[in-house]
């Protein structure tokens, strides 16, 4: 039980802290990869960079069947399940590489990475890391510099993904899936309310549609928690406008741009007018609202498809549809991003070559990426896959919409925004309570953003 005596409490705190930073010295970002890591890919990198005028082609993978290793890979359930789809192909190409997957929820994965990295041992060879956390680990110096291996893939991946994977011109991860955002909506609800999603061009249209749907069907437009708001909806909506927590120079801009306030006030209208269902994301009531048709839309990313189809609302197949984000202004992109992940190798790994072979085979090979998209809705960051006929196939879950083509269009338009930086975790943790206070009527939108900005400046020493 929680410590009763102060000495115990402090010793506990001290132990926790010390335990977490046993070995401070560690590899830094300046370390260059050893020649042993380069493998086959780096020779291709050499040729690609030596002839910049030539049209780049996706590096061919020539597996070395003699490469032998036992890789440990960390990730969470959906990600590991997806990686395993490639297992038959991979074990054929690399018969001597065995893989041990360690499945933990994302929060545990990250915490254990931090502990392992601080302790100087215990990290896996590879981990799945969300874009939102990647820059933090890159900044820590925990990940291997794989610039040479990754460089040939740069023109073939969604450009915006590299922001999280790179630091000072060096690359530390290979993008896996992207999080193009669109509006998922219930066809039956829209029909019942007489709202044609094709007419929703602006967020004002979306708001009017919400009012109509509420009046005709009694259903709220979206789910958004007040007391346990996590800031994600706000982030998705400002990312669409090319805004984030910081500008390209790293200065905090939450309180500098009136468009941020506009977005927060827009979200508030839905709370005030009963157009939002007050459920926390990833909780039972939140799932139930999808499964039981208690909500009309969800502004979310491509990967949400796998969750809806898989276990949140498999019985609602065919009732869903997807349309692109409405615009704030005519110049806005109809695109935003939420989440997305990459694979990275740890500095501690003694099997750098095999680890890269694994990553390259899973993420740099269009067949693998396509397979994972087909089976588990991990939307590939690898653009070479978009030309595949699979993208043009209608998706029965979404009432026959060509959602994959739609997401491929959206992903090309995602603006760059100062969102997933080295301090994203901390900045999100500082913003969310301010949004909660705002939602509970304790402060105005301006105050919420000004307070969050001030806290972020104080805590992160950003300008």
């Amino acid at each position: 039980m929680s410590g009763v005596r102060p000495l115990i409490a402090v010793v506990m705190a001290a132990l926790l802290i010390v335990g977490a930073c046993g070995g401070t010295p560690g590899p830094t970002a300046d370390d260059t990869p050893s020649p042993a890591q380069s493998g086959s890919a780096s020779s291709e990198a050499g040729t690609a960079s030596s002839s910049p005028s030539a049209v780049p082609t996706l590096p061919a993978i020539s597996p070395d069947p003699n490469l032998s290793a036992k890789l440990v890979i960390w990730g969470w359930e959906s990600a590991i399940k997806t990686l395993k789809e490639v297992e038959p192909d991979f074990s054929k190409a690399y018969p001597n590489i065995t893989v041990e997957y360690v499945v933990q929820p994302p929060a545990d994965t990250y915490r254990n990475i931090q502990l392992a990295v601080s302790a100087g041992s215990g990290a896996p060879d590879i981990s799945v890391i969300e874009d939102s956390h990647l820059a933090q680990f890159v900044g820590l110096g925990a990940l291997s510099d794989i610039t040479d291996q990754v460089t040939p893939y740069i023109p073939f991946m969604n450009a915006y993904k590299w922001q999280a994977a790179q630091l000072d011109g060096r690359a530390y991860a290979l993008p896996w899936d992207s999080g193009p955002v669109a509006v998922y909506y219930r066809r039956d609800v829209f029909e019942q309310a007489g709202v044609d999603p094709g007419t929703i061009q602006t967020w004002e249209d979306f708001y009017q549609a919400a009012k109509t749907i509420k009046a005709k069907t009694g259903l709220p437009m979206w789910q958004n928690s007040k007391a346990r708001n996590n800031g994600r909806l706000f982030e998705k909506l400002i990312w669409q406008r090319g805004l984030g927590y910081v500008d390209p120079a790293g200065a905090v801009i939450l309180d500098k741009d009136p468009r941020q306030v506009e977005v927060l006030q827009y979200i508030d209208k839905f709370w005030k007018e009963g157009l939002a269902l007050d459920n926390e994301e990833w909780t039972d009531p939140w799932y139930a609202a999808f499964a039981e048709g208690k909500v009309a839309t969800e502004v979310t990313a491509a990967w949400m498809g796998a969750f809806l189809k898989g276990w949140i609302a498999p019985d609602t197949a065919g009732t869903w549809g997807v349309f692109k984000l409405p615009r704030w202004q005519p110049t806005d992109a109809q695109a935003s991003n939420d989440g997305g992940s990459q694979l990275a190798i740890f500095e501690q790994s003694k099997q750098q070559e095999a680890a890269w072979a694994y990553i390259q085979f899973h993420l740099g090979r269009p067949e693998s990426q396509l397979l994972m998209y087909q089976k588990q809705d991990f939307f590939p960051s690898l653009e070479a896959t978009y030309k595949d006929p699979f993208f043009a196939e209608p998706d029965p879950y979404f009432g026959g919409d060509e959602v994959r083509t739609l997401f491929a269009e959206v992903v090309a338009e995602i603006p760059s925004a100062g969102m997933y930086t080295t301090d994203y975790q901390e900045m999100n943790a500082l913003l969310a309570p301010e949004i909660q206070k705002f939602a509970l009527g304790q402060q105005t939108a301006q105050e919420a953003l000004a307070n969050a900005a001030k806290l972020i400046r104080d805590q992160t020493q950003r300008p």
Partner: protein
Amino acid sequence: MSAPSMRERSVAIRPRRVGSLSRLWRHRWPFVFISPFFVLFAIFFIYPLLFSLWLSVQRTKGLGQAQFVGLGNYELLFRDPIFWGSMANAVILFFIYVPVMTALAVVLASVLNAGFLRLQGMWRALIFLPHITSMVAAGYTFRLLLDRDGGYVNTALSWFGVSPVPWLDDIWWARVSLGLLMIWAWLGYNTVIMLAGLQTIPRELVEAAKVDGAGRRQAFLHITVPLLRPVIVFAVTLSIIGTFAMFAEPFVLTRGGPARATETPVMQIFSTTFEQLKYGYAAAMAFVYFAIVVVITILQFRFVTRGDDG
């Protein structure tokens, strides 16, 4: 060998340096036998303490270069509204649940101590049971009970026409809910302390009061409670420290929300360390937190025990 002769000999050789070393050598076995405690104490207490003191003057993210910042972390900390907010939360929470819990503990203890009660052992065990229940299980159960929409408490209230209470979705209700969980978990613990105290009070005193015409209530308020005061002070002291150190209960029940309203200093230290990786800053927090809890505890002790000698 008799003790006095040993003392004489050691006195005789004290002035010489070599002598004290040889004395140490002569008594090496006792030192060896008691050394495990000191070795462990040094490894798990003194070293961590010194290390976190060193950390608290660095700006570090665990890996890479630590940057010496002197008292910079402390300076930042003194104008960190989140840290002071968590301190204020602890004070508010203390006033929400400790008075109620302590009073209930005294009443329960005297009922359990009363001669007329049968199956005393069973009742005592029953009351202590929540304290040894896993807090994670209890916390999740409370979440199910207190859930706004489908929770059992709100469902039960609705039978009486009471509109749903935002137990965990409102700044003040969340604090009250956390107080309820704390009372549930710690009442038995406090009752046992009070019970121990009650058993040191001679029954004759209460009997004498009754002979003099005092009712049961009067005897309780004017004899039992004043005599129990040192024990009550002790229990409240533990509660003060426990409130500032509260972690598992809010971590499971509210995760510090909404809007940080139930975030305690130790939760703040934890998230600064393990979510933001600011080890240096968190170490500074731990020291300031420790100093504040010590000061508050001393003040409370002074305040409550003042006049006891008179």
